[in-house]
């Protein structure tokens, strides 16, 4: 196996439901409700999904939500900014932990 990830596997997502159909149906119903237009538009939800896809580094999600964002009318500038938001939160999350470092260091130091 050259890679653990195969693009075609995205189309087999439904296979996950084979051994727990009840749970799969609940997941699908919830997932579809989440992405339906509400207080946020479908386009906004897809941009959030694209950003989160990068944060969780899921190739399937990045593939699916890149296409979905384009199909909802987002452009590459908007999509790139969304990914930067994810990256900034990831980077910021690392950096903010340095307060913990400082606390420990201060506690250990004279």
């Amino acid at each position: 196996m050259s890679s653990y990830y195969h693009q075609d596997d995205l189309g087999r997502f439904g296979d996950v439901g084979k051994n727990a159909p009840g749970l799969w149906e609940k997941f699908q119903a919830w997932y579809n409700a989440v992405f339906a237009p509400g207080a946020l538009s479908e386009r906004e939800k897809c941009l959030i999904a694209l950003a989160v896809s990068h944060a969780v580094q899921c190739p399937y999600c990045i593939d699916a939500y890149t296409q979905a964002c384009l199909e909802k009318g987002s452009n590459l500038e908007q999509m790139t900014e969304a990914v930067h938001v994810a990256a900034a939160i990831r980077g910021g999350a690392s950096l903010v932990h340095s307060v913990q470092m400082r606390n420990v260091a201060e506690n250990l130091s004279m």
Partner: protein
Amino acid sequence: MTQSLLGREHPLSSAVEQLRVLNNFSPAQTPFDENLAASGLFPLTATGIETLQINVGKLCNQTCHHCHVDAAPDRKEIMTRETAELCLDVLRDSEIPKLDITGGAPELNPNFRRLVTEARRLDRHVMDRCNLSVLLLPSQKDLGHFLAANQVEIIASLPYFAAERTDSQRGAGVFDKSVEALRRLNALGYGREGTGLTINLVYNPTGAFLPPQQEAVEADFKRELAARHGIVFNALYVITNMPISRFLEFLLRTNNYDRYMQRLIRAYNPGAAAGVMCRNTLSVGWDGSLYDCDFNQMLDLPISHGAPAHIRDFARGRLDRRRIFTGQHCYGCTAGAGSSCGGATV
């Protein structure tokens, strides 16, 4: 790309080769007619003729990457005066309310103005499918005035409100020319309230994905074109790219063909299938041959099942309820909110 597929002697310039690709589908692809039957629509039949759509030829001043006509400056097929007169005879002898003139760049056909003025004299609504840049050609400097004087509805391609995406599909510099043409048309009153002059824009996706919801992207276009360039227009039509001709070549070259077809098939919408434009349109080729739509025309799939196949043999009764030729490419018109020359159908 400066030449047509035909000019490059590309195998996909042949309709036979395109159909070979389209018909050689994997078991994962549901045959279109099977979906149509499941929707209670097979065989698909016409419901009347609301629009006579005339493709006056393949000559164009642009060579767009997605063109389903394979139109380009090197294409010379063009409708003659004799055939144009046959089309006008049909308008005269029928009550078809709309004439839709397409190409290529239809304005480059020397009979274009004759078709427009005579159809207008017959009090028919006339639509010109315009690439915008044609208005800037020295030979066409009075074109805008001509269209306005005849109250022709302009349907103009503009895939995006920014240069990069527009030029990636339509060629370097096309966006700037399109903006200039739109400014001139606005100055003539097109797109402005109270003038009766209508200009609708057409959004085609700039790649292997479906178009967005029409209303959402229309709002983006109106806001951005007004803010960036002071341009106004009436409505935006979103049209799905059809997997034939140059767009098919793009799909195969970029290894996107199977994925795109699956996307179209997954998005099959019975409501869109019921409202496909071939049901109320009759398409005429540059040589007078009759087709169910401009896409079947480019695939050399003429009207069949016993209905007249040439404009000289036009018989409304037999064409009104004709059976329509369908195939895998028809998924392009039935995906999502549907796609037609007037945009989404659902």
